[in-house]
């Protein structure tokens, strides 16, 4: 995953957090969903974002929330696709 793509992802996730009223800093290894920092609506928005931005087809993946629970995990997931 390239640096500019990671920045795009970071910007997107920060906007989701701010929509939820969460202005805490976002580190690359911070849990997003399992910690209840973001909810299932945000998860669907993230899925759509990854599909549209990186062309991921989640129907072909045995999807688990853990796979995209942090920026690092998303990067690792995208590198495997």
């Amino acid at each position: 995953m390239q640096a500019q793509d990671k920045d795009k992802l970071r910007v997107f996730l920060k906007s989701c957090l701010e929509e939820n009223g969460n202005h805490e800093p976002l580190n690359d290894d911070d849990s997003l969903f399992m910690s209840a920092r973001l909810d299932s609506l945000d998860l669907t928005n993230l899925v759509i974002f990854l599909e549209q931005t990186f062309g991921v087809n989640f129907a072909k993946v045995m999807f688990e929330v853990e796979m995209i629970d942090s920026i690092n995990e998303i990067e690792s997931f995208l590198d495997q696709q």
Partner: protein
Amino acid sequence: MMSASDSAIASIRERPDQPRRALRDWFAFDQNTWLTNYVQSCVGRIVLLLLFTLFCSQTFGFVLSLGFTTAAAVCAYCPRFRTISLFSATLTILMISPSSRVALHAILSIAQREHISQALGIRAVYLAIAGFFIGSFIVITVARHCKTWVLARRPVMTLLATVSLLCGVAASSILHGLAQVALWAFIIVMVSYLWFLAYALVDQRTREPSPALFQLGTFHPFWGSTTVPFGKGAAYLRKTLSKTRQDLAVTQIKGLKLLTWALMLQYLESGLSWLFNTAWILPNLNDLQTLYVQGQAYSIASAWGALIWTTADSALHLAVGGHQVIAIARLAGFRLPRNTWRPLEARTIAEYWNRYYFYFKELLVDFFFFPTFLRVFRKHPRLRTFFATFMAAGVGNAVFHFFKDIQIVAEVGLWNALISFESYLFYCFMLALGISISQVRMNRGIKPSSSRYAIVWSFLCVWGFVLCLHIFGDESRNHSLYERLSFMASLFGFN
């Protein structure tokens, strides 16, 4: 800079960015440095455990409360023994009181019909429980090593298909006597634990799944649950486990606060119950519908009063039970979000659904919403969201509740069980429609205004919807859909 765990704790069902109101500041004990340090000391831990035992005993009695507190303490303070203590405590409660986990009365009723003694019936239950747990251990272990196995790839569909098949055999009257009782006992036990096993099987697909014994310990864990796993499964519990002593202290103080709040709500429920049921002698909704069907007169005011009180009582009851469960889980060190979180503040139906019964919503999202959302209508975002939400809140909701009460098939046969389910099916359909439309509107960025008038209007709309739906949502199966629709029309003056 706050650590990830601090920020996670802060976000437990709260909105840390909003300016804290004075009242919340007063009760923010978990943010008090002296208190969190004290709770980490030996004496502080003992005081905390004593308070938990005292507060729990108001509901569960002293012995059971002591058991909960002890098990939670071992989980929290002795990580090396966490797995064995979780499993042991969960198993102990199951053995002592199987009726708290399994529909024991239904199995004994089937035993009576098959002319089997109650003692043999109870033995059949324990055998079914043992068989299910051993079977689950094997299945979880196989799924961990064989990820292409159908139970590993499609756990929910496979488990539901298995239950359906077993029900088919049971309902076909091939078996009689003890064999029939044993089969129904196994089916009823399996249904009680179905969604726990589903979460455990899904966990086997992750990078580092929890050991099988830990998974079994989360099956109706000692801190409590309904058929819906409170705390979901081992994967969620791993992520929410307190990582440092400071985290643990804050989590446990939050648990004690929640338990105190649950106690206050319990007293409120008792007081209101006395007021409505004893002082004002308001009939409950089910009785009122029976009166309506029998053609007996009652005032519209008392009908609305009964509907409002029954709905409010259900919400209070759910909140009290859920808070107690989550409080004990937090004592054990798991930073779980509350199950019910200020449902009266919901501004939309979708938000109400998230606030009222969080873990049931999560179950439907995990097993029905996302599998649908990821596969269908990928080029049509609104239809995709609508359909996936409908599958979760409608189809998933209906499937969950039909299987939850599967013993009704044993009592009245499959066809009558389906017919008597029509009202709840209607409830699921209308609820799903409401949530789906609300969800699509939220996705489009349509948000309610924050003016006071808009807040009141949102409350009236959301809870008006909830009230009307509650007529169809009770699981008693005492009245047909037509009777309930007629009753609802009578509330608006149409007879």
